[in-house]
């Protein structure tokens, strides 16, 4: 509020000013590319499951998954939401109680699966949100 700001200004003029805390090297290092939030490949193989007697197609699908840290600063991370920025700030202020933003899928795609049922009828079904196309910080 205006009153507080005035008060702060008065204080600044009389008391030695504490330098604002800038992100330490450790903070920057935590967003290293090795640990940064990103998409990883993960293939679910219907063939390896031994399901080829009833799944006609596909042989499997690249489900993928998201993994990595969403650390300050978030510029390095893909698709960080506005909420993730707030979450990071609150985490920096209270690291013990507030977790960092989560690395999670931002873009999911569908796959189609063709399979037999118990009566040898054939089903072609579209499954939404099966393949992670992109990850980001939430």
């Amino acid at each position: 509020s205006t009153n507080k700001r005035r008060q702060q200004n008065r204080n600044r003029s009389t008391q030695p000013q504490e330098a604002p805390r800038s992100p330490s090297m450790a903070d920057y290092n935590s967003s290293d590319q090795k640990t940064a939030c990103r998409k990883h490949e993960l293939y679910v193989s219907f063939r390896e499951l031994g399901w080829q007697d009833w799944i006609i197609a596909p042989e499997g699908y690249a489900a993928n998954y998201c993994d990595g840290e969403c650390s300050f600063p978030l510029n390095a991370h893909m698709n960080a939401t506005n909420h993730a920025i707030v979450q990071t700030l609150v985490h920096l202020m209270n690291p013990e109680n507030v977790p960092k933003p989560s690395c999670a899928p931002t873009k999911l795609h569908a796959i189609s699966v063709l399979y037999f049922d118990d009566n040898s009828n054939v089903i072609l079904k579209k499954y939404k949100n099966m393949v992670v196309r992109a990850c980001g910080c939430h």
Partner: protein
Amino acid sequence: SNYIFDGNNEIHSSFIQRRLRTHEKREMQKEILSILGLPHRPRPHLSHGKYNSAPLFMLDLYNTMSNEEKNEVEGFLDRYKSMFTTHGPSLATLQDNAFLNDADMVMSFVNLAQHDRELSPRRRHHREFRFNLSQIPEGEAVTAAEFRIYKECVSEAFKNETFVISVYQVVQEYEDRDADLFLLESRKLWATDEGWLEFDITATSNLWVMNPRHNLGLQFSVEASSGKTVNPKEAGLIGRDGPHDKQPFMVAFFKVSEVHIRTTR
């Protein structure tokens, strides 16, 4: 694990680094089945092989869909229409039905009538077809359904001849007399016509799904232009004794309800 593996060489997660125990494998399989909306692993009896007309039709549809999913264009109707270019010529014109655009599941049903039953002399050329619609996943609503039968060219025996092909729903069966039939569609064709014939059985399929005891199958008859009934085989219609890839079957299109039902864990 053997069946789920990380394509990335870097170490990211501990569960990838160890082989799953037997019960864990089983649980993982259950989880994947749950994602697919299946209570258990299906055990199909593939006595006729995977290369019957219905699986082939569905595989063509799958390939068309998969190719077009990559391009991220088109509606379901386009995919369905393009089927006819790869699965034999079609004699019927597919109407631009809006419901096909948002269908997200297609299911084919094999004909379960194993033998041509002895019908009365009046209906000796009728053929019967039965389909099991009892295993339709929960939450699916039929938006369209077709009975498909293949017709070959029979120009030599019936030069310049036309046939009237009729499809009936069996309404009531009796032990001592002919079944009551409800005419679904009649269509006039030339003897020289060749390709898949599609008959709209959407209303009938909905009735069968809602009241399975009403599912008494379909009957099919062929008449020459003189009004005389003709053996469907002589008219070029492929039946049970025909090639596997031209067997009659039923196909239905479904729309999934918004609420995805998952088993409670």
